[in-house]
Structures are given as structure tokens and as C-alpha cells.
């Protein structure tokens, strides 16, 4: 058994990860791609909203908020 892939929403706070795959409809995938979220992009989970959702990640030097229900469709590996 090699590396375990998990949904982005499963990654604990203050952990870094690398994007493996984005399983979303084309429009949303395109939006994320344009914002720099591509296979191989590294990011760090830096915070969450007071009620636990959405989460805040840092990638390419900026902060992005994303709902857990969207994040779970982004397959990542922990690094």
C-alpha cells in the first residue's frame, strides 16, 4: 500500500498537502484551475470558519476559502 489519498476536507488544520485530482464539473474545475489549483499544486490548511466550515487554505501565496462539500471532491496527498 503506497501513499493514501484523501479528500481535501479530511486534511487536519496546519497540515500541508499536494493536489492529486479534482473531481468536479467543468465550470468549477476551470475556476479552481484559473485560481492556481492544479494537479501537483501544494497548499496548507490554515484555518476554518467559526462553525467549522468553510476552510481556509493557502496556495501560491494567497488565501482561499472553500466549503468542505467542495473540498471533498479534491483528492490530495498529505506531505
Amino acid at each position, binding site marked *: 500500500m503506497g501513499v493514501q489519498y484523501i479528500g481535501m476536507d479530511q486534511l487536519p488544520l496546519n497540515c500541508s498537502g499536494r493536489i492529486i485530482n479534482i473531481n468536479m464539473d467543468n465550470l468549477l474545475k476551470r475556476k479552481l484551475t484559473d485560481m492556481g489549483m492544479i494537479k501537483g499544486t501544494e497548499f496548507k490548511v490554515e484555518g476554518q470558519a*467559526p462553525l467549522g466550515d468553510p476552510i481556509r487554505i493557502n496556495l501560491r501565496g494567497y488565501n482561499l476559502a472553500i*466549503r468542505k462539500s467542495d473540498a471533498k471532491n479534491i483528492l490530495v496527498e498529505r506531505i
Partner: protein
Amino acid sequence: MSDRTIYSINYLAQIDVTYIERVGELSKDYTIALVGNPNCGKTSLFNMLTGSKQHVGNWPGVTVERKEGSTSYHGKNIKVIDLPGTYTFSACSEDEIIAVNYILKEKPDAVINVIDSGNLERNLYLTLQLLEMNSRVVIALNMADEAEKRKIFIDKEKLSEALSTPVVPTIATKNSGIQDLLTMSINYEHSAGGLLKLDYGQVVKGESSKIVQVLLDKGLAATETANLVAIKLLEGDQYFIDSVKLKENPDLNDMVKAGRQRISDETGFDPEIYLADKRYEFIVHLIEECVHKDNTNTDDLTEKIDKIVTNKWLGLPLFFAIMFLLYQITMGFGNDFLGGYVDSGFVALGEYLSRVMVNSPELLRSFVIDAMIGGVGSVLVFVPLMLTMYFMISFLEDSGYMARAAYVMDKLMNAVGLHGKTAVSMIISSGCNVTGIMSTRTLDTKKDRMIGILISPFVSCSARLPVYALFSGVFFGDQQFGILTVSGIVFFSLYLLGIIVAVIAGKVLSKTLFKGEKSYFIMELPPYRIPTLKSTLIHMWEKTESFIRKAGTIIFGLVVIIWLLSIMPMGVEPGSADSILGKIGSIMAPLLRPAGFGSWEAAVALIVGVGAKEAIVATFGMVYGAGEEVQLASAIQMYFTPLTAYAFMVMTLLYAPCAASLGVIRRETNSTKWALFALFYSLLIGWTAAVLVYQAGRLFGFQ
């Protein structure tokens, strides 16, 4: 670090510019377009360039704001267009289509690409796409001071060389580098036909060159742009697919399809993802070359503020506290204090005119005093409130807090099928529904936006206040309930009811009409910044002005129509049961009987209220023939009971969006059908609620 110059504003001398003194040859409508990501300081730069010489309109056919201004260069007038902030030019959203279309079709004389120095990696993505489309680009390396503070050093010469386009460091908020930027934009001699050609690898190169050949053979693209068009077609870009009419060229269509297939097969990516990946790959290399980062400290301040503002325990209380304060200051300072002056000003003006015009014909006097002063006054009385509220909202937006507000509220809102940003638009609605509806533009998906638009009118706005003040003053004024005043409780209950109805309506709409449609929350949380007074004031005025224009014309027009109906047919006592207005009221009155206020006067007031809710009180004054406040109070006491008064207030709160709101709903949804839907579904909800209040109250033995 000698080879890395930290920002010197005297930069022009260092770059090898083929400097041509163009002042003499500048055409009359020399145009510069500004493009950039959201939150890159583009708007501040626009404000610094143009100052107060700007004009906000709409792009034809869409609801995206079109900002245009002018500046001068050696006495010549230069037009500046602020294109919508976008992350990309992939032409998926209205904003992107407008920006792409403007750059390709209107061909501005120069394009300034504003980029945030502290966020180069993502900002340069747009830059690359821009350089692929346009060769007259100057890069404004904005927020140079912020980057420096964060120990990010950018080698401008190398960056400029690599992109073969000039790079000018700027600090828009401090008005630094702006003149250099302007000089560079106007005088830099760009090499002809120099569109950026990125190396996308062998497969893309092979496929695109085949397509280029066909495009040129068929005359579908010019030599300079053929490569761009080919790449964009392979990327599946709808704008370019439409512009070459791909569907009408089956062989080209097949070739593009085959090309896309080959890219997918060879690279394992969808072509658009592959191309984006290649662009980012190029950027990462570029940054390795040109940027030196002292990674020891990142953006501390934002990190620290976010620790508090989005804290598990503090986040929500802080949000509610800020909104409460916003509302209190708007009402206390804006409405009561400043608005009071405007109001008494108009009252005095009305009295003065009625004295001066004492010998004028009755009809003319009535038109000037009742219709004109009354109409214009009822709009202008809200201006201080708007100015106060928009000052604070602009400040919160420009500081970066509003993005956090949406972030903090999203889960709570999402539980009832709404979006975090809807919380913000509902707050804005509490000042004025029209502006609340307009603020839903920031919502990305159709579902979230439509629901936001349709529920905003239920939020109690400031125009309903005079009605509450009149009725609760008359019936609940001096009563105490423990330490609370009953009229305070009445006010609060109406606000709460408005929010509850909005939330329920949102939930129902998301489960019925918009069932299954997608909603997502993907949003940049920009660094906190201290807004400049100049920008805040400009934004405050922009928003207020658009309220005055939109609401003003509609409200004024309606007040005049109502006035006409109240004096016709000729010879009747104005505003009596015999006037057209009175007759309409008599027809409608029976419908209102189940709610306890089935008089023609109440019906007329409500009909007028669809025009503008603040006109309801004035209408009661007119139809009861009570000019003074005391007379009006005793008339109200005669015709209403505490219970029917409360039912009437509930009706006023919910029964219909005002005319200005309806107009804005029609414009924002681009559909008369939705505006009518908003009117009728709220009429139904308002009537039902008022009837329920009255009937339930009677069951419990209230009067």
C-alpha cells in the same frame, strides 16, 4: 543583493525605452484600459489616476458596472477604462467576457495590467493571458511597499525582459509611481506584432499550427492573432468559438476536436487544464528567476487579525457586533441626525413656498408643494442615511472584512439553503432594499444570486420606519414591559419577522424553484488593508449616486402619478373617496377586511406604498385630511386598534417590494417575469401574514 533594486520610483531612466515624445500626436480619444485580479489595488490606482473625474454606468445588456474616467497628460485628455477585476480571461463569466471583448474589439491604445506584488504567482496568470492577446501592455507592479515589508524582492528588469513588456512599480494608495506609469503607457514603443507566444510543448504546437493554417486560409483570423485564436480554440474558449463561428465550419470544428483529443491522450489532462498548468509552470520558473523571498516572515498582520476575526468563539459575535454598530450609526447619525436636517429643510421649504405661492392657482401650488417637494424630499431624506451607511460599508469592503463576514456566516446561512455572501446583502438591505438587491452581484452562481435578489425585499428597510414610528407611537408609545418599551419590542419584532420570512422564503425557493442547482463557496480572502479616505469617499459617493439616480427617478415619477390620481377627476376634493385614487381604494378595501383594516384609506395608503413605502404616512395624512402630526395621530387612533395597527405594520413590512426595488429586480434578473413574481409572491405572503396576525390575535382576545 546588489543586483536586486528595491523599489525606486525613479525607475523610468533605467529601462531601455524607445522613447518617443507622443504628446503632439496623441489622438483626442486616447484610451488606456486597466485590467487585473480582484483585490490587486486596481480600483485605487484608477481613483488616483482619474480622481473625481469618473463616471459609472453599465456595459450594454449586462449588469456589470462600467467605470470610465479621465486624466491628463501634458494637457491632453486621456480616457481611462476600469475593466472588471478577473482572475482569468477564459470568458466563463460576464466580467471576463466584457474584459476580453473590450481588449480585442475596442483595441485600447494601451493596457495597464495592475498586479499585486505580494501575490505575483496568481496575478501573473492573467498577465500571461493578456500578453497573448495584446502587445501594448504595461505592468504596474502595485503595492510595492507591501511586498517590500513582507521581504519579497522583485527584479523588475528581469521580469520586464522575460515578458518583454515594461514594468513600473507603483503604490496606488500613496499615489506613488502613478505618473511614471502614465508616461510609460503613453510613450513606450512596443515592438510590432509582438504577442507573447508561450511554449506549450510539442503536441500543442503541432495541433495549433495546423489550425493556424486553416484559419489563415479561410480568412478567419489575421496573421498576428491566428496563433492566439488557435490556442484558444484548443482551450475550448467559448468567446473564440463564437467569434470564428466554429459550428459553421465543420472541417475546422473536426480539426479542433481531434486536436483536443490528441492533447488529452498525450498529456492525460483536459486541454484547458493542461494549458493552465503550462502557464503556471512558466510562472513558477519566472518567479524563481525574478523573485527573491525572505521566507522568515509572511503576512503577520493579516494572520493575526484573522486569528481574532475568524476565531471559533469570537468570529460570530464580532460579526453581529460590527453589523449592529453599522446599523446603529446609520440610524442614529445618518438618519436621525443628518436626515433630520434634510427633512426639516424640506418642511421649511414647503412652508415657505406655500406662503410665497399663496396667490398662485390652487393646482399649481398643490403640484409644487405636494408632488415636487414631497416627491423629491421623500428621496433626498434618505441620502444622509445612504452616505453614512455606504461610508462604513465601503470601508469594510476595502479593508477586506466583508470577505471574512461571508466566510464566517456561510455555514449558518448554508444550513437554510443560503450563501455566506447573502448575509452581507441582507445587512445592506436593512438600509435600503434597492442597494441590497444590487449587492447580490457578488454571488457567483445563478441560484444563490436569484434567491438573494428575491428575499432581499423582506428585510425591513429604513423606508418602513416612519410607518412603524407612527403606529407604535400612537398605540404603544408610553407602555413599558419590564425595562423595555413596548414600541421598542414592536420595532424589534418586525425586524426579526422580516429576517425570518426572508430565510424561510430562501429555504423554500432553494428547495423548489432552484432545486438541484449548484451553489459553491470558493472565495479569495485578501490581505487586510487600511482603506484610503479618498477611495472610501469615492466608493461611498458612487453607491449613493446610483441610489439617487435609480430610486429618485422611479419614486419621483410615482409620486407625481399618485398626485394626479388624487386630484382627478377635476373638481373633487383632493385625496377624497371621490377621486380616482379613492375609488381604486374602495375596490381594493374588501380584500383587506380579513386583515382587520378594510378601509379605502388604508387600501390607498398601501397602493401608494408600492410606489414608495415612506409615502404611506404622507398618504394617511392626505386621505384623513390631517396635515399636522397630532391630527394624524388622533385619526389613526380612530380608525385602527392596537391589533389592526400591528397587522397593518406586518403588511407594510412584507406586502410588496417598492417600485424602485421592482425596477432593480427587473434589471438585475434581466426579466420582467421575475419582477412580477417578486411582486405577487410577496403580496400573497404579506396578506397571509397580516390576516394570520389579525385572526390569531382575535382568537386570543386582543382588539
